[in-house]
């Protein structure tokens, strides 16, 4: 049976994701061979998907085009009700957050799914964009890593990138009482400490706030939803795509194998 993985193609770097997912499915060998990759622009296309990637791009554009294309509610259902695997990168992470700061005037529509608050354009304008090596421990369990040792650094491309600035408690949200807590999957060490040097003397962290000495949170997961601040689709490194697709195969495949 075919596994259909969609990439939201309203705007942004969707082609790059399809390319890397194609390579990743080959690297998964027999497990990945029945993967079909499609561009998603409307609810009919979305309804055929078992999993979805929301690419980088402009989150305001994607939200507005999604609303005008009648895709916002189907996306929310896909993520929160059907709980299908979804991965958002940069703008995709913003759309998958329950709350966002520094949005356009009047705020923006979000899909939600991750109980976090993101800070848009956290590092500033394009002149502050950068590439840096990331240590991503979860890649140790990626197929091809043989499950042992420290994975090699991952080249993180941050372009006008957001970060996760707060973890929201999902208590009191009646629609999803059984949700798992948000897992922090990657941090950018040092930067946050530097940015808030004046306040580092106060070690107390309010519940839900990200501990200040941890660094900027740039990758999170909560149940079926995964988000990264950076752009794996702008590298040649397939490891995150392989890791994610492997879990999709496991999760979705388990239902009919």
């Amino acid at each position, binding site marked *: 049976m075919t596994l259909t993985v969609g990439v939201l193609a309203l705007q942004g770097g969707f082609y790059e994701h399809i390319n890397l997912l194609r390579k990743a499915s080959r690297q998964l060998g027999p497990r990945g061979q029945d993967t079909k990759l499609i561009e998603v622009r409307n609810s009919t296309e979305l309804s055929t998907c078992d999993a979805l990637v929301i690419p980088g791009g402009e989150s305001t554009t994607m939200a507005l085009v999604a609303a005008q294309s009648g895709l916002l509610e189907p996306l929310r259902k896909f993520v929160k009700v059907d709980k299908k695997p979804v991965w958002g990168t940069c703008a995709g992470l913003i759309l998958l957050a329950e709350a966002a700061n520094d949005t*356009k005037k009047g705020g923006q529509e979000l899909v939600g799914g991750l109980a976090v608050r993101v800070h848009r354009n956290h590092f500033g304008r394009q002149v502050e964009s950068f590439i840096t090596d990331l240590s991503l421990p979860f890649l140790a369990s990626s197929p091809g890593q043989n499950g042992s040792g420290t994975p090699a650094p991952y080249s993180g491309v941050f372009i006008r990138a957001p970060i996760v600035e707060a973890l929201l408690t999902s208590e009191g949200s009646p629609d999803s009482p059984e949700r798992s807590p948000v897992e922090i999957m990657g941090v950018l060490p040092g930067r946050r400490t530097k940015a808030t040097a004046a306040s580092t003397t106060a070690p107390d962290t309010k519940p839900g706030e990200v501990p200040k000495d941890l660094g900027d949170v740039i990758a999170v997961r909560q149940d079926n939803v995964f988000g990264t601040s950076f752009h794996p689709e*702008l590298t040649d490194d397939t490891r995150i795509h392989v890791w994610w697709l492997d879990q999709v195969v496991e999760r979705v495949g388990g239902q009919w194998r």
Partner: protein
Amino acid sequence: MGENGDGINLAAPATNGASKKTFAVKAGLAQMLKGGVIMDVTDAVQARIAEEAGACAVMALERVPADIRRDGGVARMSDPDKIKEIQAAVSIPVMAKARIGHFVECQILEALAVDYIDESEVLTPADNMFHVEKSDFNVPFVCGCRNLGEALRRIAEGAAMIRTKGEAGTGDVVEAVKHMRTVKRDIAQAQAALAEGETSVRQLARELGCDAALLKQTAELGRLPVVNFAAGGVATPADAALMMQLGCDGVFVGSGIFKSGDATKRAKAIVQAVTHFKDAKVLAEVSTGLGEAMVGINCDKMKPEEKMAGRGW
């Protein structure tokens, strides 16, 4: 540019140490703009209309090309005040134009932290021999082209994004179509040369006046090695979808929006048209009842010296 003597490296380098500004970071923002519409705006009010319509970026200008054309005289970089006003109004990327070869205007725009600089033929050129050496800047550049040779010369100078020149301020898409078709034909020619061997690629590079390594890379990719938008004369959703179907990655709309009857509605319609460029039903829907399009100037009736696309070397 040839960072490693073998074309440009779009993908982020595998690993090494601290953060660094590379071509990948500059070209990466252009990749994130794909499938989107970049709109010319002259003040905060227009910038907000563009953002609310779903523009993926705005181009901050004092006058749209149609007005530059009408007013005549020397067209220069915008007043920094105007650019700051627009930056403060929106959360999407803000681009600005500098004159061809005017590297000090570019330095000023970099100091203002604009997200992209358009070294643009719409403004009056400041240098009749050279374009700006764009690799020296941290801010990425977009440049216009009429053919592959011109595109690759700009990329060699450090441009991280290309657009067709078209004929700005006319509302006539014919020149943008011509430039896109010319680039495609040139790429097909480069692929034929590559099949013949390295000698043919070098010979074609001499004819087109571009770097042989970049030409070879283009032939191997079957497309420009950076993102390529349409610009110059796009006035309707159908124009935008036409350019997308011809293979452009996204669309700049200059005078077409704020010189039309209902700017808000037209802006939204063009954004929809660029996403759903292959879906004629959606295109029919969004093309309906848009009010008056910009009146426009027929490119056939223009004298050569009236055309902006001829600026650039």
